């Protein structure tokens, strides 16, 4: 009962549960990451801001204290250059020059007075002006031509000049990017593992449920002695199995009781029947041609009829209680119907009844062969008893909606209104005293017990119609085309 194909697996509850669990894992890890990312990003910014504010102050002190002579720019540049080397956790840059820090000093008119850094100081100044920012708090500046923004701190000197110190955010972004990459990898692993573990656990659990279902359906079909597997654990599923098995125990004992009763009824009646029949036969042997002989023969025939009624009644009783002992196997329905039709055809012809059989395909039904023989014989006996001479019976064997079907139609009088409601009850009899008796009750009970259905109706053009369906045998050739066979 394990799901064999891949597509079936996607329709299992285990798959659905695992999908939801995977989604939950993904959401959870995403939330954790977002807060972690924010925390790390804030922390890095706080550190670089602290460094920038401190350094820009130092640089402004140096700028103020250094005399404005020829060596002024060399000294300030040197200090700025040194500061750039103190950038915390700085990565080795791809270019040999310093491109992660810049120092910019403007004069009172706002012109570039001193520029230390890569590129042109003018563009940086423009970008700083465009940002229209003036507070002492460091801010992000985007510079044209540079891929990453700069974090810039500024300080004004007493002479109205401005000193800017910028730190490229390249390193910060790099740290955050590698953090994201790691997160994606770790997140994928967590979600993957979570999915697999949940899938494995639910699959295992649901397989037990599946075993239980399989066992229960097997039991439903025939084998009442089987029990559903019980896991050692005392969890919900263990409890389910135990409860189910307890229920099966009770059903089995009820069935066993019914079997005991029907068996002992059969035994208690059959033994004296055997003795009586045997004695009658012995008497017949010595008295074969007299009038007494005739009576003995008719007594023997009555006994056989009694025995048939007994057997059929017990079968109907067991079938109605779903306690029929079945030995189902794949049987080609058309072939069985054909050999029975051939068996009955001379008797029907004798009564001036015609019968034709049409087999649309080879139809393999999963049935008890002996019961199927009796079922079809009952249908034929029933036709012979209930339709007037000159009538025609047609039988069609076909695969119908995943079932093996026999369609019996005749052009007789059809079922009387008062009979139809209780057609399949044992001993229902029509106004025409012949009655349907046990025959159709047997057909109905035995078909149902084998997992099939019987439907009776009257044809609009007159006559009765019985549709008997039986479960198809699952096999490679459960229905294959066949040429029509017409009999009689």
């Amino acid at each position, binding site marked *: 009962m394990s799901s064999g194909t891949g597509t079936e697996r996607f329709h299992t509850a285990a798959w659905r549960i695992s999908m939801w669990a995977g989604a939950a894992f993904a959401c959870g890890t995403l939330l954790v990451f977002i807060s972690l990312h924010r925390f790390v990003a804030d922390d890095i910014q706080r550190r670089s801001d602290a460094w920038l504010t401190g350094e820009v102050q130092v640089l402004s002190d140096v700028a103020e204290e250094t005399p404005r002579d020829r060596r002024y720019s060399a000294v300030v540049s040197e200090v700025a250059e040194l500061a750039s080397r103190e950038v915390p956790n700085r990565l080795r840059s791809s270019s040999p020059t310093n491109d992660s820090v810049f120092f910019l000093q403007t004069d009172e008119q706002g012109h570039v007075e001193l520029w230390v850094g890569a590129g042109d100081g003018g563009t940086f100044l423009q970008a700083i002006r465009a940002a229209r920012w003036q507070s002492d708090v460091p801010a992000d500046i985007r510079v044209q031509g540079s891929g990453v923004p700069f974090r810039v701190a500024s300080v004004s000197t007493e002479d109205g000049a401005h000193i800017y110190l910028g730190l490229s955010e390249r390193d910060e972004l790099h740290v955050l990017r590698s953090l994201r990459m790691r997160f994606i990898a770790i997140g994928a692993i967590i979600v993957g593992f979570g999915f697999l573990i949940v899938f494995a656990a639910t699959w295992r659990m649901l397989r037990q449920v599946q075993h239980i279902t399989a066992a229960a359906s097997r039991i439903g079909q025939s084998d009442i002695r089987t029990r559903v597997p019980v896991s050692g654990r005392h969890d919900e599923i263990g409890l389910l199995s135990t409860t189910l098995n307890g229920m099966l125990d009770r059903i089995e004992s009820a069935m066993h009781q019914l079997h005991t009763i029907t068996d002992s009824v059969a035994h208690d009646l059959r033994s004296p029947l055997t003795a009586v029949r045997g004695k009658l036969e012995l008497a017949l042997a010595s008295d074969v041609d007299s009038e007494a002989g005739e009576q003995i023969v008719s007594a023997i025939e009555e006994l056989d009829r009694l025995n048939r009624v007994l057997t059929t009644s017990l079968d109907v009783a067991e079938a109605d209680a779903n306690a029929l002992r079945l030995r189902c196997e794949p049987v080609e329905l058309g072939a069985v119907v054909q050999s029975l039709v051939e068996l009955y055809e001379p*008797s029907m012809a004798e009564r001036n009844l015609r019968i034709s059989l049409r087999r649309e395909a080879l139809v393999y039904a999963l049935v008890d062969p002996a019961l199927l023989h009796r079922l079809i014989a009952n249908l034929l006996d029933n036709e012979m008893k209930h339709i007037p001479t000159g009538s025609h019976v047609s039988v069609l064997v076909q695969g119908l909606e995943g079932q093996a079907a026999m369609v019996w139609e005749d052009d007789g009088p059809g079922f009387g209104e008062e009979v139809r409601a209780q057609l399949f009850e044992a001993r229902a009899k029509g106004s025409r005293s012949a009655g349907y008796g046990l025959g159709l009750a047997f057909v109905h009970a035995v078909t149902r017990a084998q997992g099939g259905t019987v439907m009776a109706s009257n044809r609009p053009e007159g006559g009765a119609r019985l549709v008997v369906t039986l479960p198809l045998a699952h096999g490679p050739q459960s229905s294959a085309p066949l040429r029509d066979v017409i009999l009689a």
Partner: protein
Amino acid sequence: MRVLLIEDEAEIQDFLSRSLTEAGYELDVAPDAATGERLALAQPHDALIVDLGLPDMDGIALILRLRRLGVSCPVLILSARRSVDDRVRGLEQGGDDYLVKPFALAELLARLRNLLRRSIQPPPETTRLRVRDLELDLLRREVHLSGETLDLTHQEFALLEYLCRNAGRVVTRSMILEEVWGMKFQPETNVVDVHIYRLRGKLDTPEREPMIRTLRGVGYVFRDRD
């Protein structure tokens, strides 16, 4: 031929003893499994007839026990049970036979005879059957009566073949149904009789006695001599 009958019902035991003795068998009778076992081991028998519902032991258990003790003769199982036990099916496959109560005496005798014949030698594979002036060619599926070819359907041929193979012996309707049509049930209507009538119509001529004799309440005999 010595047969051991193990059956607890006195009435059944009684008429079976009478008819088996009349049929010419030497008979030992046991009313229970213990006596049956003792008798079976005391001297060899050609066949056993065992009822499954014995008072002291299950019939199948007794048969299996006797088999283990070296009793190898064929067994005819009698049962009033409704379902056929798997073990009975096993025995059936092993060459034993099974008869449901109530049975026709003729059928019991016929089955017993078959069992005994099978245990002595398997029937020779013949391609031709001859009974008096009737000749069946089993390969070409042709029938000749006094040199004239008869036109039979395949069912009629199968029925005639079965009757000829058992010529001179009683065959019952249920035996015919089982052997010719492969079905184990008793139909409510006289379907087998009508097949016999049809066959008779093709075989018989007004100037001679019918070849198939009806034993009313019992079955049919195909006459093997005039």
